[in-house]
């Protein structure tokens, strides 16, 4: 049997390192962009033109068309393969009339705007702020629900709250790692957090609970079965017994995600990628962090009365 409990310190250090790296990534993003993550128009408002042209168009032409309609600080980026002629242009909030004016001018100067393959997205700043606020609320509520749910599920074994707290700690690590990854991709690929990013984060939270529960459930079952065994041995046994299941399940989920990453459209790429990273982190934290937090806590708790007697 592999001794997972003895290597506990290594896992904690590894988890700590991941968190520190992620936080550094977010701080770097804050230093450069003024945001922990580059946020998209869903959260901060603005307009996003994803325009497909039928022929090659220069960045300068696009910029000029926007400037002519009064948009000077536009960010113009080419998307995907250069032969796709796909461009993304970010501007401040444009009303429907302004959008139409810009598109008309662009079509005039390039004669190559493929409206059927273009998307225009525009959000007013006030909605964005509201969405951002309730996104934070949603993550907060999710954390509380996880805590309450695990506390309730494990109410029959000693110290159920410890299991809840350990789960929330693991969950937060996963969320931070996923955010750190996204901050990094903000530098590398210009990814911006949108409503789907939040969806991915909340899904990671859900899945991380799912994995933790399976291990905890086994501990719950093994406590009465192996009465008298030290808690660390019960923990180790439970990890061993659930290892196969966790790996097999994660593998299947990853098959699907990797297939979507490879063959699905570009739209979903950031969404699936951040979910994949969250899931990797979650596999690690559920087996190697959450369980050991409970283990450490239980051992401390047991030592104290022993010393008193």
């Amino acid at each position, binding site marked *: 049997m592999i001794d997972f409990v003895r290597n506990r310190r290594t896992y904690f250090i590894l988890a700590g390192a991941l968190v520190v790296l992620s936080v550094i990534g977010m701080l770097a993003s804050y230093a450069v962009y003024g945001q922990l993550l580059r946020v998209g128009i*869903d959260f901060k408002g603005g307009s996003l033109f994803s325009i497909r042209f039928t022929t090659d168009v220069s960045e300068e032409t696009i910029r000029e068309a926007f400037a002519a309609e009064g948009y000077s600080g536009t960010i113009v980026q080419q998307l995907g393969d250069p032969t796709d002629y796909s461009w993304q242009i970010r501007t401040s909030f444009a*009303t*429907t009339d302004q959008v*139409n004016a810009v598109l008309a001018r662009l079509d005039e100067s390039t004669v190559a705007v*493929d*409206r*059927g*393959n*273009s*998307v*225009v997205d*525009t*959000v*007013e700043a*006030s*909605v964005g702020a509201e*969405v951002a606020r309730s*996104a934070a609320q*949603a993550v907060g*509520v*999710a954390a509380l*629900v996880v805590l309450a749910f695990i506390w309730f*599920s494990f109410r029959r074994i000693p110290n159920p709250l410890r299991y809840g707290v350990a789960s929330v700690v693991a969950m937060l690590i996963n969320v931070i790692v996923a955010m750190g990854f996204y901050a990094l991709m903000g530098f590398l690929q210009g990814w911006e957090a949108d*409503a*789907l990013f*939040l*969806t991915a984060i*909340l*899904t990671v*939270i*859900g*899945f991380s*609970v*799912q994995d933790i*529960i*399976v291990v905890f*459930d*086994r501990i719950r079952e093994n406590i009465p079965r192996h009465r008298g065994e030290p808690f660390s041995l019960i923990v180790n046994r439970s990890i061993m*017994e659930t290892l*196969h*299941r966790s790996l*097999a*399940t994660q*593998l*299947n*989920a*990853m*098959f*699907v*995600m990797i*297939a*979507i990453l*490879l*063959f*699905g*459209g570009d*739209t*979903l790429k950031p*969404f*699936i990628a951040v979910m994949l990273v969250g899931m990797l982190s979650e596999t690690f934290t559920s087996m190697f962090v959450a369980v050991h937090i409970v283990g450490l806590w239980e051992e401390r708790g047991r030592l104290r009365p022993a010393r008193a007697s």
Partner: protein
Amino acid sequence: MNKKTIISLVLVLVLAALASYLVVPSEHPEWLKRLLAWQPESARSLDFRLGLDLQGGLQVLMVADVSDQQALTAETMRAAAQIVEGRVNGLGLSEPVVQVQGTRRIIVELPGIADPEQAIDTIRDTALLEFVEPPAGAGDAALEPGRVVSTTYGLVEGGVVPPGTYTTVLIGDALDSAFSTIDDTSGQPMVIVRFKAADTQRFYEYTLNNIGRPLCMVLDKTILSCPTIRDAIPDGEAQISGGFTSEGAQQLAIQLRYGALPVPLKIESYRAIGPSLGALSVEKSIRAGVVGLVVVFLFMLIYYRLNGLAADLALALYVLLNLLFYKLLPVTMTLPGIAGFLLSAGMAVDANILVFERMKEELRHGRSLQRGAEAGFSRAWTSVRDSNLATLLTCAILWFFGNAFAASLVKGFALTLALGTLINMFTALVVTRTFVRLALGLLGEERLRRYPWLLGI
């Protein structure tokens, strides 16, 4: 093999056959569609419904454009949504959606629209109608139709009113109906305006005190017409006549009728998706889904052998049942929705894996195959239940978040993931168990013992 197994096998097969018949695209008889009583009568169908991101179209989010202090009742918003819907229906689209979101927003979704500009103009035309009193001492120029004016409506109460502001007497929701007709006596076209009973008294008092003065009808702060009040109007029915062509009268009546929004609306966000983009996304998603699922099928088969085959059959039924529910409920398919479905299919085998790992353990402890299998299913249940509940809770949070902001993409993902989790509880436990029992019964304990590789032990 006992009777129970055979019965549930037959039920599973019947369900599979029924689901395949309904899911596979073909001409379904009309009476079948008529059975879908929970779907709106006009749109009962057994087709997949594609969201905006898959078939292109326009999504517009509008917000009540009034100061935050002004209270808005749910009824006001519903009435406004109804009027917008009336306008949108005029565009002749197949499945437009107009819904109130939260307390002050209305979402409009127009799938498959070819001309988003025209649609936006149509929606925006649903302007605010006001009956206003011109400022004191205003000349004829102030009454000219087409003139843009400012009114007191929407201003914070008790605040400073700038000079030249027109005083709002009544707004559009006081209007019961408006129609054009021909005056019996003069033969001239005219417009009849009828006020709601609740506002009749107010209109009477106002007209009584202002005989001989003009009262302007203003649509979206633009003057439509400024008839002069000739008499006090006690019954809430006013005639506007003089100088109309019959088209002019008709147009004014339509503007009064459809422009009768109870609250002004402002476009807050919108998304226009080109129609060709969606087809490509659908194609790519299907390819990704097929590849992903085939790998999952193979993995289960190679890793769990006979059990894996049972799980694969259950997974196939899982996919069928999900698609069936998407058609029946119906669920509007979006790109994230498809991702949620695929992901849930990948996770669906989790319950099976829990059971099979448990089974292997029991067998290693020397139990018979039969008892090992049963113990595997019953012992794994608490884990399966708790972990699926956790996913359902997450979906609920996602749904509420998505609902507040018309983030239909988030909602689509939450819905398909939740539906998948529920269906999975059935297929992974009931269906897989039936197939596993069947295999054990057909092959027998002895034979399986001789070929342990069949179970992957």
